[in-house]
């Protein structure tokens, strides 16, 4: 990899290219796969660096709501996906509906009256023969000769029939167009209703979750040997410690909380609390071994509806102890398992591969 390409990619990513140089480099990116690969590598390296430094942070509830409202407003102008090559934008829905209604009314207004008698009006008030309403059939008019005026009525009827035929065909085409437009409207309406229903269900599930007050789930995590032996300290002892010194649980010499004993001695230990309302987990770790500079303590969770573990947070360790918190997406459930391992600092975090420090429940 040439230094100049690395430098160009770095300058490009951080917006430090002059317009001319940027334009040339964008041409390079379009035509050079090596440049694109280098761009991808540096982008992901720097994004990882940024994520490690700027820890994920939730917006306040009000701020979150405002952002969601803004995003909803932005996407409400979206054009639905096309079907069979015909696309109807949301902005054109109402005018299109109005056109259809007006068209239908106009069609109804222009529909010829049913014939009373034959021949053109001759001053006596009698009407010429006209078409029947069933224009789709392309029915031609049949003028009915009036009494005592047969010949004049037939002549007038023939002329009227010719005009009526042209009108019928025209009306037939208009009706077909309107029917097609109506079908499109109905299809779009069905799509909108479906999307609306999905959104409402999501809002309802969120509202249901919000109604749950102060639901916390707790979990003990122990080293693998204690895990296999089923040894636990007991969350009651931890709770006692929290009640006496809120927010702080001081490990004893043996590694357990005050007033309890840890059968596993000074082995790694942790306890975890998950706030199901805020979708936030907290974990405190004790008695951890020294963490090499190139490694990191990684927290993983497994959800009830997934098979693998998901990396959620790393833990800074000082003198064998550390704590952290993590936030899961709103639609995620409650973790059913928590795992803490030692992983490479900048290695891939697709699955736990390093030494297991503690796991639970």
């Amino acid at each position, binding site marked *: 990899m040439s230094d100049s390409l*690395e430098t160009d990619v770095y300058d490009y990513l951080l917006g430090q290219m002059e317009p001319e140089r940027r334009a040339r480099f964008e041409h390079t990116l379009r035509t050079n796969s090596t440049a694109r690969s280098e761009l991808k590598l540096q982008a992901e390296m720097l994004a990882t660096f940024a994520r490690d430094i700027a820890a994920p942070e939730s917006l306040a509830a009000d701020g979150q709501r405002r952002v969601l409202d803004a995003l909803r407003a932005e996407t409400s102008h979206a054009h639905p996906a096309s079907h069979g090559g015909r696309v109807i934008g949301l902005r054109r829905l109402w005018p299109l509906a109005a056109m259809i209604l007006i068209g239908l009314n106009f069609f109804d207004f222009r529909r010829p009256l049913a014939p009373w008698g034959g021949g053109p009006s001759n001053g006596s008030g009698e009407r010429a023969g006209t078409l029947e309403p069933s224009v789709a059939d392309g029915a031609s008019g049949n003028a009915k000769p009036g009494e005592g005026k047969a010949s004049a009525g037939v002549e007038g009827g023939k002329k009227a029939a010719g005009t009526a035929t042209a009108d019928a065909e025209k009306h037939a085409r208009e009706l077909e167009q309107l029917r097609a437009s109506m079908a499109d409207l109905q299809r779009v309406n069905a799509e909108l209703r479906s999307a609306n229903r999905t959104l409402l269900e999501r809002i309802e599930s969120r509202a249901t979750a919000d109604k749950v007050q102060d639901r916390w789930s707790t979990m003990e995590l122990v080293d693998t040997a204690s895990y296999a032996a089923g040894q636990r300290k007991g969350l009651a002892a931890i709770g006692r410690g929290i009640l006496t010194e809120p927010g702080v649980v001081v490990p004893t010499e043996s590694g357990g909380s005050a007033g309890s004993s840890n059968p596993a001695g000074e082995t790694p230990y942790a306890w975890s609390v998950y706030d199901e309302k805020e979708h936030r987990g907290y974990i405190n770790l004790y008695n951890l071994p020294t963490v090499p500079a190139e490694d990191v303590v990684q927290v993983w969770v497994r959800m009830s509806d997934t098979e693998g573990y998901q990396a959620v947070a790393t833990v800074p360790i000082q003198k064998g102890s550390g704590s952290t918190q993590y936030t899961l997406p709103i639609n995620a459930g409650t973790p059913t398992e928590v795992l803490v391992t030692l992983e490479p600092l900048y290695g891939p975090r697709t699955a736990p591969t390093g030494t297991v420090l503690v796991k639970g429940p």
Partner: protein
Amino acid sequence: MAEARDHSFPAFDAAALARHRDLMARMAASDGDALHLLYLELGTLVHGIARRILEDPEDAREAVQDTFIKVWRNAGNFDRERGEVVAWVVFIARNVAIDRVRQGARRRTLYESIRPEPIEPVAPLLGRIEAEEEVARRLGVLSANQRQALELAFFGGCTHAQIATAMQTPIGNVKNHLRRGLQRLRKLATRHE
């Protein structure tokens, strides 16, 4: 030149990356639900970056909003060959926040909370650890100068000259810090591949 590799994004598993790509494809087809889902996945990450750059929480909130609106409007331009969705979103967030600073928003002072003396090792507290403490511990592979230069470049949007002024060192040193810091990050990223 090194072989081109498909590097996975370390902070997210393969399923999450695939999910992001799927959401991006849906957004390109004007599926508004996909934007909301992507926000639920990456909103906290974007907000963390915005808060790292912007002092005022309201500025940061608006930066988050602008980021995802920009993602929506440019979904059709996303190119996986140039990086995963997360990386693309991170850079959009970074650029949006820096633009706000240039338009007058208050910049968050980098390294404002770093204490030269070590924190007393009392029992771990239930609560949030200061971001600078996590940086100091996780980024031990980078020298202080390398880390500072990278932070000024990424979060501050600083040019080499501006970094040199901030660090009170020649521009040549700044370029060395950045190059070596990136080499260190590259080495760690590819160590287990």
